[in-house]
C-alpha cells in the first residue's frame, strides 16, 4: 500500500485545471448561438425549438404546480432510493471488503448482478408494485447500489494496516476504532461510491417514470411529448439535466468539506 504522502494515483478524475469563468461563458454562448441558428435554419424543420422558446416554456412551467409536484416527487423517490442504497450498500460492502475470503467468494455474484441491465428488470418490478413510487424506488436501489457496494469493498481494503496496529496497541474501544480509524479511512472511496450512486439513482428515477409510468418528471416528460409540446419537452429534459448537474456538484462539495485533509483532495487544491 502506498504511503499517504508523495505522488499517488489520480483520484476523482485526476488533477483539475482551473478554467477561467470567461472561457466557460464563451463556450456556453457559442453552443446557444449555434443552437439558435440551427433551429432557425431549414435543416431542423420545426422539430427543434429555439433556445428562446425553450426558455419561455420553462418559465411558463415554473408557474404551474404540475412542474413543482413532479420535481418534488422525483427528488423524493431519488432521495429515498439513494438512502436505501447507502444503508444497505455501505455496511455490506465494508463487511465483504474486510475479509479477503468474503470478497473472493461474493465477487462473481456481485459482478453477475451488476452487469444485468437494470432496465430489463422493469417489467418484473412493475408486475410486483405497479406504476408506483415503490416500483421506482426498487428500480433505483437495483441500479444504484452496485457502485456503492463495490466502492465500499475497496474502501475497506484501503485502511492503513499500520493504523490498525496503532489502535490495537493503544487499546481503543470498538466504537472509537469505528469513529477515529474506520470512518475517516473509508470516507474517500465511500463518498466516490455515493457520487456514482447519486447520478445512477437519478438516471433510474427518470427512466422508471418515463418508461414505467411512476409519477414524476419522467411522466411529465412523456405527457408533453405525447402532446407534441416540443418546447416543454426540451424544458423538462433541461430540468433533468440541471438536476443531475446540481446533485453532482453537491456531492463533490460535501466530499471536499469532509475530506480536506486527504492527500488526493489536498493535491487537487494545490494544482
Amino acid at each position, binding site marked *: 500500500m502506498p504511503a499517504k504522502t508523495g505522488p499517488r494515483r489520480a483520484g476523482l478524475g485526476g488533477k483539475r485545471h482551473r478554467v477561467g469563468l470567461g472561457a466557460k461563458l464563451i463556450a456556453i454562448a457559442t453552443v446557444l448561438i449555434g443552437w439558435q441558428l440551427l433551429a432557425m435554419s431549414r435543416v431542423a424543420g420545426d422539430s427543434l425549438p429555439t433556445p428562446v422558446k425553450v426558455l419561455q416554456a420553462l418559465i411558463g412551467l415554473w408557474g404551474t404546480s404540475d412542474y413543482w409536484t413532479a420535481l418534488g416527487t422525483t427528488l423524493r423517490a431519488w432521495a429515498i432510493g439513494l438512502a436505501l442504497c447507502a444503508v444497505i450498500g455501505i455496511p455490506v460492502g465494508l463487511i465483504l471488503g474486510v475479509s479477503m475470503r468474503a470478497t473472493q467468494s461474493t465477487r462473481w455474484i456481485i459482478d453477475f448482478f451488476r452487469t444485468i441491465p437494470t432496465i430489463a428488470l422493469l417489467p418484473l418490478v412493475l408486475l410486483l408494485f405497479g406504476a408506483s413510487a415503490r416500483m421506482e424506488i426498487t428500480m433505483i436501489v437495483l441500479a444504484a447500489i452496485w457502485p456503492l457496494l463495490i466502492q465500499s469493498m475497496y474502501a475497506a481494503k484501503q485502511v492503513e494496516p*499500520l493504523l490498525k496496529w496503532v489502535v490495537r496497541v493503544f487499546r*481503543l474501544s470498538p466504537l*472509537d476504532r469505528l469513529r477515529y480509524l474506520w470512518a475517516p479511512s473509508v470516507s474517500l472511496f465511500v463518498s466516490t461510491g455515493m457520487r456514482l450512486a447519486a447520478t445512477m439513482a437519478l438516471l433510474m428515477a427518470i427512466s422508471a417514470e418515463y418508461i414505467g409510468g411512476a409519477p414524476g418528471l419522467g411522466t411529465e416528460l412523456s405527457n408533453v411529448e405525447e402532446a407534441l409540446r416540443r418546447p416543454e419537452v426540451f424544458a423538462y429534459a433541461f430540468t433533468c439535466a440541471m438536476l443531475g448537474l446540481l446533485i453532482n456538484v453537491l456531492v463533490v462539495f460535501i466530499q471536499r468539506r469532509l475530506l480536506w485533509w486527504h492527500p488526493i483532495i489536498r493535491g487537487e487544491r494545490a494544482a
Partner: protein
Amino acid sequence: MTTTPTPTVGKATGPNDALLVVENLGKSFGGHEVLGGINVTVRAGEFMCIVGPSGAGKTTLLQCLSGLTAPTTGAVTLRGERVTEPPAEMAIVFQDYSRSLMPWLSVLDNVALPLRSAKIGKAERTEKAMAALTEVGLKDHVHKYPWQLSGGMQQRVAIARALAYAPSIVLMDEPFASVDAQTRADLEDLTLNVKRHLGITILLVTHDIDEAVYLADRVLVMGKKPTVVVDLVETHLGPHRDQIATKATREFAELRSRVYKQIRRDDLTNSAGSIAAVG
C-alpha cells in the same frame, strides 16, 4: 540451521526484576525463517538497545514482543503472563512513523487519542497530550496536522503519543532515524531523562552502534537470518550520560568496538550484507 545452541550471554537475572521474558522465540513467514529462537530476559526499568543488520528481523521481534504478530515457536511473557495482544502497559513507536499517525487528526488529537482508553476527561487528556508534546519540543505545532510537519517532527509526535500514554514499557523501532544530528542527540537525551524520571523500561531498535551503547544498559546484538542473539553486552555506563563526555571515555570506545566486532564477525561469516556502523 544453527549448529551451536543459542549462547546465553549476559548476567543471569533474578526472577524479581524480570519484566519481559522471551523464550525460544521463532518466526517464519511462509517457510522463510526470520527469527530462529531468541532467548532474552528484559529487566524491569532497563534500557535495552537492539542492533543488527538490516533485515535481521528486529522489527519482527518487536511485533512478536508486543503481541501484534503471533510467533511461530516459543513464547513471550510479561510479568509472568503470556502476551497475545498488546498489553495495556505497553506503547510502541513504529519505524514507519509517517503512516502511524492519523492524517485526519491534528497533532494534539493524535497524541490525545490513546488516552481515550484510560477513563479520564477531555480536559485531562488534552493537558497530558500538551505536556508530552512540550516535552518533545512541539508545543508550537499542536494544532497543525501531521502532513504539515517534517519527517523528524512527525517522529517526535509519535514519540509524544507513546509517552502521553504513560506506559511502563515502550518499544521503539529506529525512532531517531530521520532527524538531524542535533535533534537526534536531543531526543536521545530526552529519552534517557524520561526513562530515568518515570522508571519505565525501554526497548529500542537502532542501526547506530554509538547510539545503542550511549543509550543502553544492555545492548542486544542480533545476527543474520535465521536470527539468534549473538551477544548481550552490559554497558555499565551509569544512569547519567553526556553526549561528549560519555562518548569520550575508554569504556565507551571498548563497548563500541565489541558490539561492532560482533556484528562484523557475524557479517563476515555470512558473507554479503552491510550495516550502518556509525552515525
